[in-house]
């Protein structure tokens, strides 16, 4: 395994501050279909450092999206706590932006309108909104699409708009719920590269849920492997590929195949939840 100390940039980032997100004993159960309760999340501890890119992988149905929604404050946990910048999370808030697999754009607003909506909630003055929205759209590579409605866009363009809208919140934490899961392979690869560029330019802390081991390895500083239900942290992997990185470099790295096989072996062992 690649050693952490071999990459001074990463370790500098890590030592910079204390946890941006701190999960302690987060647990969640829900009412079973017939009777009793099903424990979905069985107590998760995790620290995410400022500026870190952390991926959550796990067998399907293990509750990784649920965990992300708990961190987002959209659903409550039954036990444990989530701290963001040391403050207890008790509901959704603009300190934690979220991007969903389903894009969740406002279909009655244009591309520009979707982004200015977020700017307005943040209190940006009416006259500064169009300029800032255009800058954000340009950051995600959509300079020309401002006047279109979401129904006129491809899946990849929709997700670019959703990312621009979330960036408009200017939150330091970005929660991403399988954001590229609904896209074709080529669009997905392009957006992964763009996300890394944006992450590099903005210095956000990213918590990224994915099904794809390749995606997690290419993007992440750390990969958290969850067990099947009730999910716990099974393994934490620090790939340590150099940054800035290209896909070719990552694939050609001597440790890639071993890491890939290790994560897959763990997922296979957990089986479907």
């Amino acid at each position, binding site marked *: 395994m690649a050693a952490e100390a071999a990459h001074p940039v990463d370790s500098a980032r890590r030592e910079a501050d204390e946890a941006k997100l701190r999960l302690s004993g987060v647990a969640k159960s829900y009412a079973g279909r017939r009777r009793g309760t099903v424990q979905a999340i069985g107590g998760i501890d995790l620290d995410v450092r400022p500026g870190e890119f952390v991926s959550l992988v796990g067998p399907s149905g293990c509750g990784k999206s649920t965990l992300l929604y708990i961190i987002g404050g959209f659903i409550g946990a039954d036990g444990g706590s989530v701290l963001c910048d040391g403050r207890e999370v008790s509901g959704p808030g603009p300190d934690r932006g979220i991007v969903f697999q389903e894009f969740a754009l406002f279909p*009655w607003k244009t591309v520009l309108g979707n982004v200015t*909506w977020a700017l307005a909630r943040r209190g940006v003055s009416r006259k500064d909104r169009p300029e800032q929205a255009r800058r954000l759209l340009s950051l995600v590579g959509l300079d020309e699409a401002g006047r279109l409605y979401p129904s006129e866009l491809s899946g990849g363009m929709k997700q670019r708009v959703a990312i621009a809208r979330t960036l408009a919140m200017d939150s330091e934490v970005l929660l991403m719920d399988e954001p590229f899961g609904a896209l074709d392979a080529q669009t997905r690869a392009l957006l992964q590269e763009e996300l890394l560029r944006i992450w590099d330019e903005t210095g956000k802390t990213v918590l990224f849920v994915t099904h794809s081991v390749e995606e997690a390895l290419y993007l992440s500083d750390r990969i958290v492997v969850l067990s099947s239900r009730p999910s716990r942290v099974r393994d934490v992997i620090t790939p340590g590929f150099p940054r800035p990185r290209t896909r070719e470099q990552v694939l050609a790295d001597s440790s890639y195949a071993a890491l890939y096989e290790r994560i897959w072996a763990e997922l296979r062992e957990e089986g479907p939840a």
Partner: protein
Amino acid sequence: MMRLISRAGPLLALAVLIGAWHIAVSRGWLGNPFVLPGPGAVARRAGDLWSDESLPRDLRTTLGRVLAAFALALAAGTIAGLAMGRSTTARAALRPIVGLGFPAPKIAMFPALVILLGLGTASKVALGFAEAVFPIAAAVAAAASRVPERLTWSAESMGASRSAVAFRVVLPSALPGLLAGARVGLIGAIIGVYVGEMVVSSDGLGHAMVAGWRQLDTAQLYVSVVAVSVLGFVLDGLLLLARRRLMRWAPENASG
């Protein structure tokens, strides 16, 4: 050519209907023309009533009442529907009211409305409102409860207040359902006002209908019926026009 036929189709169908009406009456198939006068007689009577100012006056009176009833029902139905669709407390409180009120025959309340609100406009507006508000509330409630969770979550994470989520996310998202309910509600408002005018009134199209009946002036009766139907047709057309403007964002299959 096909396009011309499809455009002229509705007019053609109307012409066939009126033609059949005319032939049936003139051949005596419908019995005494006093019971159902032909289209010519009804049109002549409409001309008389138009030139002696009574038809325009009745139209204005009924139109004003319908618009008032519809506007009040749209506001109240939308608020109640949003509350029912988004809050379990409001749903628990309002569902029995809507569930019982929707099928109840509103005309049964009309004597009470007249005693409460008098013989004038207010009691007719109230009856029109009662007919219109339930379909609107029910449609908005159904649409509001189906708004994708991810949309409201996104808005909440951006720091939107509860009322911003309700009026800037749930309401526009529920707009297709709201407009469908509004079309049904509009027809309800017309029926409520017209029936109210038929029962107790000294003006309006409903009153003209009953007056024609009492004075054995059946042509006037049918002038009133045709006038209120045309009024409904035109108002519904305006609502469809408004929908097309408001729903420009929707993909074509969803706006139909």
